[in-house]
């Protein structure tokens, strides 16, 4: 299908047909903050534009899957509209973002792999915790299971391959790292990622409205808490961590 360059950045959005009721708008390839920020800006514009026939969109690292009702619209007209929206994106101006301050009880029974991650990265556990709490994570996308957010921004010093032997069950609220990424597990699930700590916040809780804590495009910072504070917060029904609005900056920080 059509390929039209995106003037502001020189990137080339590509439209890809995905069957009779979906298409993919690809803004680039790979995992990069500025690229992902453009994805979420375009996704928001699609939502705000109220285009007829759009069923839902799935924003990912570098693309958006747009599912549509072919009785209302079609690949060609919708594709052209999406390209027009992408071409009009102002990539220079970032928009305000939501940043969650997520409390984490690191190490011990809450984070069984913290010591090993420290040993492998040739650092003390205190240094590993400091590195984690200094990082400004970005929710690149959600996938895999309800509420599972892929967090980019793990300091390079902590990049490590996944566990050779995945665990069959890791507790809900586990703060983990795998490869170059971090995550908070929404529910009990199997995982080969390293467990650093646990948060009393649940990223997926059907008793809460909305049930999802993190949305694509959000920011996350971790803050260390004691086991006693963990117990206190976990006892609160439907604990939601604090959040702040990150004002619109001139340029997307290429962290």
């Amino acid at each position: 299908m059509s390929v039209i360059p995106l003037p502001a950045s020189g990137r080339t959005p590509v439209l890809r047909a995905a069957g009779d009721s979906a298409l993919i708008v690809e803004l680039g390839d790979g995992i990069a903050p500025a690229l992902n920020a453009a994805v979420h800006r375009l996704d928001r514009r699609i939502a705000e534009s109220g285009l007829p026939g759009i069923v839902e969109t799935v924003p990912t690292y570098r693309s958006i899957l747009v599912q549509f009702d072919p009785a209302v619209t079609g690949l060609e007209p919708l594709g052209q509209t999406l390209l027009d929206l992408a071409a009009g994106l102002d990539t220079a101006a970032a928009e305000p973002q939501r940043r969650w301050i997520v409390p984490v009880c690191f190490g011990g029974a809450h984070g069984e792999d913290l010591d090993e991650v420290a040993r492998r990265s040739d650092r003390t556990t205190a240094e590993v915790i400091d590195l984690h709490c200094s990082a400004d994570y970005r929710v690149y996308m959600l996938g895999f299971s309800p509420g599972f957010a892929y967090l980019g921004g793990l300091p390079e010093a902590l990049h490590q391959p996944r566990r050779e032997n995945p665990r069959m069950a890791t507790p809900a609220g586990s703060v983990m790292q795998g490869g170059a990424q971090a995550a908070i597990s929404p529910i009990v699930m199997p995982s080969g990622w390293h467990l650093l700590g646990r948060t009393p916040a649940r990223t997926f809780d059907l008793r809460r409205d909305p049930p999802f804590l993190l949305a694509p495009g959000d920011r996350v910072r971790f803050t260390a808490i004691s086991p006693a504070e963990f117990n206190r917060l976990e006892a609160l029904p439907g604990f939601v961590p604090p959040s702040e609005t990150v004002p619109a900056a001139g340029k997307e920080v290429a962290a």
Partner: protein
Amino acid sequence: MTTHLRILAAGPSSTIQDRGRVGYQRYGVSVAGAADPLLHAAANILVGNRPDAGAVEFALAGDSLTVEGGPARVAVAADVAVTVDDQPVPAWTSLRLRDGQTLRVGPLRSGMRGYWAVQGGFAIQPVLGSVATHVRSRLGGLDGGLLKAGDRLPLALDEAPDQGEATLDPSLLPARGGTLRVVLGPQQEYFTAAGLAAFLGEEFTVSHEADRMGCRLNGPAIEHARGFNITSDGIPLGAIQVPGTGQPIALMADRQTTGGYPKIACLVGPDVAALAQKRPGDRLRFRAVEAEEAQRIHARHRETLDALPGLRRSAGGFDLHDSTRLLGFNLIDGAVTGWD
């Protein structure tokens, strides 16, 4: 007391399904929903429900259940033997069951999945806008699980009214062949010309690893041109991904929302259900169509779905004590009339 259906024995993979959970894929929530929306709609229409109401989807064999309270009106849409209190009754026909009567839905004679619906639907709380069961994330249905013996399914309608029964001739439904239509892409450039030729030219067999999430196919290895990893992106219904083994996997109703294998093609809408009805060992081929043709196929399929209520015919006042009369009913003869 509210009317319930008590499950006496469940089929190997029976779940409550509607048209699925729409709007939450961005949060990692799978869509789920009926694997064969046409038969799902047929079961609902036979009992006078909306075509997208919650109904039970079963695989290979159906369920046995008893009415507690009632009466309750049910209908089975599948090529299957059905009994009420051990007396044979026809599928594709609604029946009014009294308190204590037992419905048994046997093994499928053809196809992989069938449906039974109950008038008024189930009185269960939707989760994220849908009652569709997604077993892997334990969402929807009854506590997110497969139906099992002992389950009590509460009904929204306490007493099914005494009204005429409806029937539908399944031979009027579109036939499903062994050739499935696809639109190439979104990542066909990840495959060599030989890989694409094998995909479109050779025969594939449905493997035993086929369920509501994905359908693995066995056939010639499909050659990759540039590795088999992409930066994870969204997965539409019916996408066919090819992992490192070169053996394709079609992604079905319960598919994961995102994935990192290149997708060689996507099935056109109605052919996703055609694949969902194939059994392990069944053979198939793929045929590529242009996206515009795929949209025309989709539109025609939509017309078929919309016309489904018009295929209902009156089965007359159906009396279980006179089931032989209905079994002798010629379902093909006569004008197709509305039921209402």
